[in-house]
């Protein structure tokens, strides 16, 4: 039984994808020779060759636009953006072409590609290296958006994403890359895109998050459990499609909810989750749904980071306040 970190699980998943699909290829800045700045593609070029693990010039729009053309011919490009803050030059290609070619061509042409984007703060990095802009991708019709929070899902969602007939934005929680190990299963396991995971059943309050913030949520959930509060913990895993049913069923049961993300608050994906709940479960709500998020500010550098990133303590306060309402 292989116990792997998220980084290792992604590397293993990429290797499996390159084995399983002749059409699969990996392309991006420094993904080959040096295995990527996070070493996620480590060893793949040696193993699969420079034709399938391609080091590109420094040009994000080029990577996505060229990958798009490859996908139209039937390849399965797995593209890497080095950090989310460097994915914006490719935004036009994602919104105007990758997300739309199926509609534009009435299914004749499609773009079954994956764009891997390391995201999130907490590593004391330089500016642009701590972005959490998942909401702008989730607001783009035509692309799916997934974000694993644990090794097993990292591997399973990656393989599902490569196999998916539509483009998938694959967000990778940087600060969890090497935090925990778990059994990721043998071979090409899949995790269905669009299904949330109820990590812990509970009856008092629903705690909803995804990706990197799941760590703080897990800590908060166990702390509350220790205090005798029954928390239902939901890891969305997929933002588009969103598993509305699981969210709503849970809140109908608990009557209370806290949503946690690290992105800026205004227009963040937490707002979408809150809105879906109030549309479909308003009458079950016994208290306002609370958002625990980053602030509507620029993400600070190392020495200010702790002021910005939601802490386990902040999640706990929100849970308590919601229970007291």
């Amino acid at each position, binding site marked *: 039984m292989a116990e792997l970190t998220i980084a290792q699980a992604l590397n293993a998943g990429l290797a499996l994808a390159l084995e399983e699909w002749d059409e699969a290829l990996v392309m991006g800045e420094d993904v080959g020779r040096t295995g990527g700045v996070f070493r996620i593609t480590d060893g793949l070029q040696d193993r699969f060759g420079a034709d399938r693990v391609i080091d590109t010039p420094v*040009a994000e*729009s080029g990577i996505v636009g060229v990958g798009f053309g490859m996908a*139209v*011919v039937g390849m399965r490009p797995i593209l890497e953006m080095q950090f989310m803050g460097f994915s914006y*030059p490719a935004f036009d290609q994602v919104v105007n072409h990758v997300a739309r070619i*199926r509609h534009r061509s009435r299914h*004749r042409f499609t773009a079954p590609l994956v764009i891997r984007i390391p995201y999130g703060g907490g590593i004391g990095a330089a500016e642009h290296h701590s972005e959490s802009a998942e909401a702008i991708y989730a607001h783009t019709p035509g692309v*799916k958006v997934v974000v694993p929070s644990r090794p097993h899902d990292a591997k399973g969602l990656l393989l599902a994403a490569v196999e998916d007939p539509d483009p998938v934005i694959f967000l990778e929680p940087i600060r969890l890359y090497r935090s925990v190990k778990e059994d990721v299963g043998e071979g090409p396991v899949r995790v269905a895109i669009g299904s949330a995971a109820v990590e812990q059943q509970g009856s008092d309050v629903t705690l909803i998050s995804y990706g990197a913030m799941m760590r703080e949520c897990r800590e908060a959930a166990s702390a509350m459990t220790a205090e005798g509060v029954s928390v239902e913990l939901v890891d969305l895993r997929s933002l588009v*499609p969103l598993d509305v*049913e699981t969210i709503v069923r849970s809140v109908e049961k608990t009557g209370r909810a806290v949503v946690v993300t690290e992105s800026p608050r205004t227009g963040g994906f937490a707002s979408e989750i809150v809105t879906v709940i109030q549309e479909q479960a308003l009458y079950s709500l016994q208290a306002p749904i609370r958002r625990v998020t980053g602030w509507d500010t620029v993400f600070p550098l190392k020495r200010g980071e702790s002021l910005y990133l939601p802490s386990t303590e902040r999640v706990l306060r929100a849970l308590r306040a919601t229970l007291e309402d």
Partner: protein
Amino acid sequence: MRQILTPSGGLVGEAPVDIEMTVRLYRAMVFARAYDRKSMSLQRQGRLATYAPFEGQEAAQVGAAAALEPDDWLVATYRDAAAMWMQGYPLELLFAGRTGHEAGGRPPDHVNVMPPSITVGGHMLHAVGLSWAEKLRGSSRIAMTMFGDGATSEGDFHEAMNFAGVFGVGVVFVCQNNGWAISLPRSQQTASETIAEKAIAYGMPGVQVDGNDVFAVHEAATEAADRARSGGGPTLIEAVTYRMGPHTTADDPGRYRDPEDAEDWERRDPLERVRVYLSERDRWSAEWQAEVESRTFDEVERAITLAESLYDPDPSHIFGAVFESSTPTLDAQRRELESLLEDDD
């Protein structure tokens, strides 16, 4: 600037194609012009949404597209209907798009032409990916991409040219330098002397040709296509031409350019010189041309009628094409729309 057939119909050097092929190229240009003019009048009648005419650019589009194999990729723009039609894009689909129907974006399965690019610049990268992937899959298909002088200012032009150069991808970059990007003259689009010389920055050959000389365009495009197919990598072709009409039917060139320019360019008309060339060889007659034109008009009439007769989109049309299979959220939204429509009748 390479020129083979002078405006007066005389040869400089040798014709790159025989007389039969010349007739075919000319017929295509006559067809293109008739199609373009008919489209303008259809637009005035309100049967098409805005239309981007290409009169004056027939030689550039026909000469370049004629260099492709039937299954090669063409990635062109809103102004390149002639080239797309040459490569097999059905007229009725070109019109379908112009009437505002997505059906226009789906060419028949054997036609490897992308829907016309509406954004300026982004599509050139797609051609690089298409040709590269074909090579990776062992096919000999190549890709040609067409764009304007204005498109060369977009960052995506640079990234596409650079990727093609670095990876030696077999792409034929055809820039139709028609002198204008809406209201911006070529001279203010870039400070380089020619657009062809931009190829140097990417280590690829660049050639500037008289874009109104179908022989020069076709020869350059054929050389480039052969190079691409034989693993020789990309080429940039600058076809110097002129947009005789407005940018689109919503544009008024009188606001920004001197009518005399157009008169000047009329003397360099891409069709007339070939007409002279053919008639000097007894391969042209007014009757024959009238015949081609009237057949074109019938063709166009049939095509526009077909396009107009397409069913208007229903909910499945827009919800069915977001992903291969729908999602609970999309299903719910679709039901919401359907219930609205039901109650409407």
